[in-house]
């Protein structure tokens, strides 16, 4: 089959590799119909994530048709499914508490050593996202092997387009969980750093959960425009002093809840960020954390901090004093996708959330490397690239502005 493989910083290629097979009884093989490039794939593309190996197949947002099932899979051939990016067994202590991304068993035993040393305990495995998270082949390919297929994939009813449901795999539940972690109360003002896909979905989710106002912070005009479309007020941090603006816009109180949907590759023009960049490039530290610092300082006293943004390593100059003195609460974590899928599928069916607005480009799988470059170089116009293995190269459509 053809698959998008990683070869190093800014070097991804579409290559021919062996087709996947049923290896374990609970496996299923899915023929991919749609697969997206995620903002966190850019962390791999930029070489920020350790334990990648040449030839790794990327992709953790995907869906398709069931073509083969193991004896213990509950899926049936021909079903259309969306696959969660977290690989969870469904039977360990954490899965029984619906903490799917903390699954004890999804990560192969040998790979768990890496996370044990870094994080104290191994996390669940993820598709196509380094060997620390399992080393599983991802879904930017024609076919993918899905382990624990009786627990993860959700069957999509007929009549719903791929484009509507694809984001159940990661970014829609991630945006929803971000808003849920912000413990939003009716009347709240919520500030969201980063209007990428997760930020935009957390804005929609925050309003559905009863937020009175959402203030969206970014520097890409097109992304701020999308945030405005969902009812958010906006701050362009290239033109505006973010902390000052937030304080003025909230009458000196600060937002009740703050959401960092920027993460490891925060772009900011500030001294601490420049120091972070120097440290990152000299391997003194892996994470650049301007957004979370600003969010903690801006958050109102006794407020809530939600951090869906991906961090991988250690940071310094974390404003622990402000965090403690103001009595803030922080909730974070990889998304427990399986927990949120059924409810969010219903929300899509009932038109409560808009998902298709996000897709700016549809490309054939063969042009995946172009998709990565485009997404990386032009984050204003390119909000989401969806790869379609069946799309003929000539018939590629590019839709600007959703």
């Amino acid at each position: 089959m053809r698959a998008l493989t990683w070869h190093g910083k800014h070097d991804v290629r579409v290559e021919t590799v062996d087709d996947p097979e049923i290896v374990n009884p609970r496996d299923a093989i899915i023929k991919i119909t749609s697969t997206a490039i995620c903002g966190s794939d850019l962390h791999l593309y930029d070489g920020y994530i350790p334990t990648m190996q040449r030839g790794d197949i990327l992709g953790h947002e995907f869906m398709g048709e069931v073509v083969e099932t193991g004896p213990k899979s509950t899926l049936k051939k021909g079903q259309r499914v969306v696959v969660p990016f977290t690989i969870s067994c469904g039977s360990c202590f954490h899965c029984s508490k619906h903490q799917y991304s903390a699954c004890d068993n999804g990560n192969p035993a040998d790979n768990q050593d890496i996370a044990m040393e870094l994080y104290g305990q191994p996390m669940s495995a993820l598709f196509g996202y380094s060997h620390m998270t399992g080393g599983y082949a991802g879904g930017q390919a024609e076919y993918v092997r899905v382990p624990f297929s009786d627990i993860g994939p959700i069957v999509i009813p007929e009549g719903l387009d791929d484009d509507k449901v694809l984001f159940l795999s990661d970014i829609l539940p991630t945006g929803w969980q971000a808003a849920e972690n912000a413990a939003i109360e009716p009347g709240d003002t919520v500030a969201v750093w980063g209007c990428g896909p997760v930020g935009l979905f957390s804005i929609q989710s925050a309003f559905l959960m009863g937020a009175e106002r959402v203030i969206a912070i970014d520097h890409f005009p097109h992304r701020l425009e999308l945030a405005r479309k969902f009812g958010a007020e906006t701050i362009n941090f290239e033109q505006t002093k973010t902390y000052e603006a937030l304080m003025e816009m909230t009458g000196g109180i600060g937002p009740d809840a703050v959401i960092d949907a920027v993460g490891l590759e925060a772009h900011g023009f500030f001294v601490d960020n420049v120091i972070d960049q120097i440290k990152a490039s000299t391997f003194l530290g892996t994470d650049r954390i301007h957004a979370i610092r600003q969010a903690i300082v801006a958050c109102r006293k006794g407020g809530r901090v939600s951090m869906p943004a991906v961090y991988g390593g250690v940071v310094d100059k974390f404003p622990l004093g402000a965090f403690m003195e103001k009595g803030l609460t922080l909730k974070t974590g990889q998304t427990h996708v399986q927990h949120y899928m059924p409810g969010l599928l219903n929300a899509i069916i009932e038109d409560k959330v808009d998902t298709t607005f996000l897709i700016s480009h549809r490309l054939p799988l063969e042009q995946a490397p172009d998709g990565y470059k485009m997404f990386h170089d032009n984050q204003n116009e390119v909000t989401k690239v969806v790869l379609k293995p069946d799309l003929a190269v000539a018939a590629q459509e590019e839709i600007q502005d959703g």
Partner: protein
Amino acid sequence: MSETHNREATDDAPLSTSKNSDAVDEATAALVEPKGDTLIGRTVTINRPRAELYAYWRDFTNLASFMDNIVSVEILDDRRSHWVVKAPGGKTVEWDAVITDEREGETIAWASDDDADVPNSGRIDFRDEPGGRGTQVTATIVYDPPAGIVGKLIAKMFQREPAIQARRDLRRFKQLMEAGEIATAARTRNQLEEEKA
């Protein structure tokens, strides 16, 4: 609690976590018949009933399903078994093991007999995890590394070092018991065979 805990120390932590290098003497004293001077201890919690885990383990022919280095375990009689285990450099090592202590649903202790390639002894303890969360399985193993420190380093290079193996084997045991299968990132059956080789 159990006799593998440090009576000299001022805390309740297992001996295998001691900073004190002579902790192994106390651990070996707690074992029925100590063989060797290198101590491994590792505990894993498994979300299954104690009796079920004990029964699976007690049938030693099952162990090859999750212990990657076992080539074969042959049952000789109700106390004796013959073990063939992979070693670095494509070699194998063999020994006869004798059950030295056994309590149904709680403990299996063993020691290798005198002409073992790698003298070893140990015990597997099964305890109910508090709060109805399943079973704590603790492996305590004492062994003599072949060729001393150098042998241990070579084994580590080949990822056949017993401490690394014990921790990974226990994780695989947990996966098999909880999920019904052992997680692998292999994309094809060939890849899986290569990983196991």
